[in-house]
């Protein structure tokens, strides 16, 4: 018990004095999360909006596959990306294995279905209210998809935050494709796993506190946005 409390105090010291190693790991985590969520949102939100507002022959099949992909096991995704980017893999010539770029790719594969499916659910309910209006005024498809996204902006913010939460706490895929290399691909989650196994609880706990704080701040922000939305719109979707 004493060891834990000592480690806890020591970890607070690392955070307060902005330990260089800790800072480097945190910044890399945030950078990877930022790009992974940005790419997933740019692709996933319009795709989700399009699927929610369009009927075509294999739509239900596509939606079912995407919903199934929400539960992709990270280690399997990591293995899949590893095989593709390893020397003998089809994209091995790019030399991206054990780099932050391939970690972002793995994260996009994990987050994209989540962003897309949550967007689909939000916009599908809006579509039931808007589609007759859009049809009667012959609103162009692109304009209507943009309107769905603009009018769901508060809810979509929570989708993006859900993506950030998933990305920043992910460990299974990125440890396989990133390799947890010091100063290159070591992020908060992989560092926690490593430092815990080494018995270096100060750094592991310090990173744990940062991760936990990030999750609490994100959830608080979601609640704040929801309250703001309910206050300004006067209605719910």
């Amino acid at each position, binding site marked *: 018990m004493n060891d834990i409390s000592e480690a806890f105090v020591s970890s607070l010291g690392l955070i307060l004095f902005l330990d260089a190693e800790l800072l480097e790991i945190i910044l890399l985590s945030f950078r990877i999360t930022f790009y992974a969520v940005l790419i997933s949102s740019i692709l996933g939100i319009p795709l989700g909006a399009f699927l929610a507002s369009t009927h075509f022959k294999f739509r239900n099949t596509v939606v079912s596959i995407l919903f199934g992909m929400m539960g992709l096991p990270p280690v399997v995704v990591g293995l899949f990306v590893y095989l593709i980017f390893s020397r003998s893999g089809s994209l091995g010539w790019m030399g991206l294995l054990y780099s932050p770029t391939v970690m972002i790719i793995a994260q996009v594969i994990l987050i994209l279905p989540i962003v897309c499916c949550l967007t689909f659910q939000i916009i599908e309910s809006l579509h039931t*209210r*808007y589609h*007759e*209006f859009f*049809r*009667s*005024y*012959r*609103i162009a498809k692109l304009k209507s998809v943009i*309107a769905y996204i*603009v*009018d769901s902006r508060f809810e979509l913010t929570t989708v993006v935050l859900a993506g950030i939460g998933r990305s920043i706490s992910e460990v299974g895929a990125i440890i396989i494709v990133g390799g947890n290399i010091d100063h290159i691909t070591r992020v908060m989650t992989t560092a926690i796993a490593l430092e815990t196994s080494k018995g270096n609880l100060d750094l592991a706990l310090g990173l744990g506190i940062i991760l936990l704080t990030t999750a609490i701040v994100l959830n608080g922000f979601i609640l704040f946005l929801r309250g703001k939305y309910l206050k*300004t*719109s*006067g*209605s719910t979707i």
Partner: protein
Amino acid sequence: MASEDTQIRINGLSFDIEGKTLLHNTNLSLNGDGITVFLGANGAGKTIFLKLLTGLLTPCSGSITFEGGNISIKTRAFVSQEPVILRRTVLKNMLFVLEKITSEKSTLAKELLSLMGLDTKEHQNALTLSAGEKQRLCLARAIITDPEILLLDEPTANIEPNSTTLIEKYLIQKVRSSRKIFFVTHDINQARRLADEIVFIHTGRVIEHSSAKNFFENPKTREARKYISGKIN
């Protein structure tokens, strides 16, 4: 503009859903001007008929043709019973339906909002308007598209009396002379106030079609007489 020469011909129009016929083989010739009111009890098939005219529904058989005028699908505007309001300001709701926003259209939007008593609320979030204000906004938004035909599905069903009065006054004084209006209602008094022509629908069948004066003074069918006397709701 729809003119007196314009006729809207409806030939053998019917609409089924899941084996149930909601509109039976309908043949009509409607005036191209004035206000035609679709009157009938709840569930009679009025809204189905209106949506077929709007093009929102595709008939199972039959056709609707516009003769002697220049009315096309592009010149119809539909206002539903439940106002559809986008999550943006009142003015932006108005401008959304336009293909191209010009300074003339922006000015027209403000004029229409003023006519609808919404000029002080143009920068307000449209979702915070009252039910009547929302419906007035929907009507103004329909007018800005400059439609030849305005199709209104019980637009005053759920709104306060002053908004109903404003909308009716606007339709009679400003719209009737320049556009064809189809108006769905089950309110006999409203039909008396607005209608030039009545199409009475009962259980999916058009059973009476005549001028408003004839309909209310000499209804031909037993159902119409019962409806006017308030025995069918």
